[in-house]
């Protein structure tokens, strides 16, 4: 089970609202490579994962992704304080505002709501760990794209932290891949699926 800790994993303190940037960064909450999908992916995959090392990695990274949802949500929250209707119309945030006001809702930058189609739990150790490594790289690219578009140091700082976590998680899932392969037949990693075959 889980218990909530009343603190962020990394501090967020944004002084200047920027609804256009909020709409882009929201994609890392509910978009195709966002933190909601990441948490759901790892916390779903761990049940049938046969190796304790990889169960630990999936559990602990999945839990950290929940903390990243909170950081992304905090960034969006602070970027959308005290906005006039004129600022909302001019920024392009109007299409979000009309449906959600300034509430936090998991959605991609394009406006597509969060979908479980953004992740897999395939029930195959090798397939899932490669999906996880790819997911970390996709999220890293998205954070790189956000950094290309952001100019406020208060926004850039926590985004750089989140970007670095994607790189670290990629490395740790690499450890998981090694554990999985060490447990399989080195002449044919695909000979059987350790999550299903006896």
């Amino acid at each position, binding site marked *: *089970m889980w218990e909530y800790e009343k603190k962020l994993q990394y501090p967020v303190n944004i002084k200047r609202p920027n609804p256009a940037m909020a709409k882009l960064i929201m994609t890392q909450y509910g978009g195709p490579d966002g933190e909601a999908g990441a948490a759901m992916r790892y916390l779903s995959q761990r*049940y049938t994962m046969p190796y*304790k*090392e990889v*169960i*630990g990695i999936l*559990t*602990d990274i999945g839990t950290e992704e929940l903390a990243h949802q909170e950081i992304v949500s905090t960034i969006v929250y602070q970027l959308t304080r005290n906005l006039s209707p004129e600022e909302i119309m001019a920024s392009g945030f109007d299409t979000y505002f009309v449906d959600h006001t300034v509430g936090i809702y998991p959605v991609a930058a394009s406006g597509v709501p969060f979908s479980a189609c953004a992740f897999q739990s395939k029930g195959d150790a090798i397939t899932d760990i490669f999906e996880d490594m790819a997911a970390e790289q996709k999220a890293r690219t998205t954070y790189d794209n956000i950094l290309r578009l952001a100019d406020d140091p208060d926004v850039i700082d926590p985004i750089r932290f989140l970007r670095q976590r994607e790189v670290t998680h990629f490395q740790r899932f690499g450890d998981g891949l090694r554990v999985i392969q060490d447990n399989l037949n080195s002449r044919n990693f695909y000979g059987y699926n350790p999550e299903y075959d006896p």
Partner: protein
Amino acid sequence: MKSGQAKLLRKLMDVDFVIHETVLYLDGHPGNQRALEFYKKAAAEQKEIYNQYVTQYGPIVAEDVRQNSWTWIDFPWPWQNDKEVDN
């Protein structure tokens, strides 16, 4: 999981649930002194059971590891019952 561990774990789960219910109530009734006193009593009881469990059997959260090996990842995970094979 041996029966001694299972029994103490069940005791911990029970007191944790009592605390959780009290927390939910206190969230909506922060001024209720009787509920607050009840919470404090349950929390003190929980601390004792918790410490006994993690010392004797292993971690509830990763930071509890007291052993000389990384027992955090050891089987069983909570979704694994006695039919699961330890490896």
